[in-house]
């Protein structure tokens, strides 16, 4: 007779646990979601050599600085014609991490007015990756800290969860 009460109860509790776990995961995922680039030109021009990094990963001042000197782009000449450069700069700054209504988590710890060029030097980025062993960065399939997708398999979709 007792099982008639216990079984539905157990099912209910199990369902609750599953829901809680799923919710928790969704929230964790939310925290590591950076809307991916949707602008076609930006995707094409920035994304042919590296992941088209989500604009919210840097403040507007950084994007302006970077787009202003594409000839010296981390050792490469990535210069574009003036019209293309202007259009991409506009998209990146409008969607930057400090643009109105954005408030990117990745910019936490960054002092006002700072305009870093490397996402990998942001205090929060460094903190989040401190447990990654040095040897992982030099692995042939990783080879560069700019290669997010080597570990974050859904990076192109904007998800940068721990893998």
């Amino acid at each position, binding site marked *: 007779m007792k099982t008639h009460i216990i079984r539905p109860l157990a099912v209910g509790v199990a369902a609750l646990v599953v829901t809680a776990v799923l919710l928790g995961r969704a929230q964790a995922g939310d925290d590591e979601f950076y809307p991916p680039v949707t602008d076609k030109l930006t995707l094409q021009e920035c994304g*042919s050599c590296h992941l088209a990094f989500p604009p919210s990963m840097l403040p507007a001042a950084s994007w302006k600085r970077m787009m202003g000197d594409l000839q010296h782009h981390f*050792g490469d*000449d990535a210069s574009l014609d003036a019209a293309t450069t202007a259009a991409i700069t506009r998209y990146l700054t409008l969607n930057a991490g400090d643009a109105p209504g954005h408030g990117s988590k990745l910019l936490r710890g960054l002092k006002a007015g700072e305009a870093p060029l490397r996402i990998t030097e942001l205090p929060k980025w460094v903190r989040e990756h401190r447990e990654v062993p040095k040897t992982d960065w030099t692995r042939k*399939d990783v*080879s*560069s800290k700019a290669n997010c997708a080597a570990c974050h398999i859904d990076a192109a979709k904007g998800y940068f969860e721990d893998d």
Partner: protein
Amino acid sequence: MTRFRQSFVLLCAAALGMPAFAGEREDLIARYTAEARAADPAFTAFSAARGEALHRDRHAGGKPDTPACTSCHGEDARAAGRTRAGKAIEPMAVSASPTRYTDAAKVEKWFKRNCTEVLGRECTAREKGDWLAWMMKQ
């Protein structure tokens, strides 16, 4: 009348059967031919063999981590390559990537960037034509 209709249908079929992008590629080759001839009156034709050598040779003038085209594009031009930041590069051979070299501005942009990286200078029209000849041959 029926004969006319027949030839019209045949003509349309021929037009549709043609590689859709051949025109743009031929224009590009014609442009490099004219430039190569202007630079050297003795120039006769592009050579796929010279193009392959350019692609595979290790050059000293460019950046140390990209001594050859194959540093990023890989040894097999029919297979995908990989940038140093981990992005896949579509195969360079026309047989594997049929839409390649159909946008002159794009071709010029990448020749400028990549020749500078690998050779430490821009490529000449002859080099560009040779290289394209090899990519179109395979």
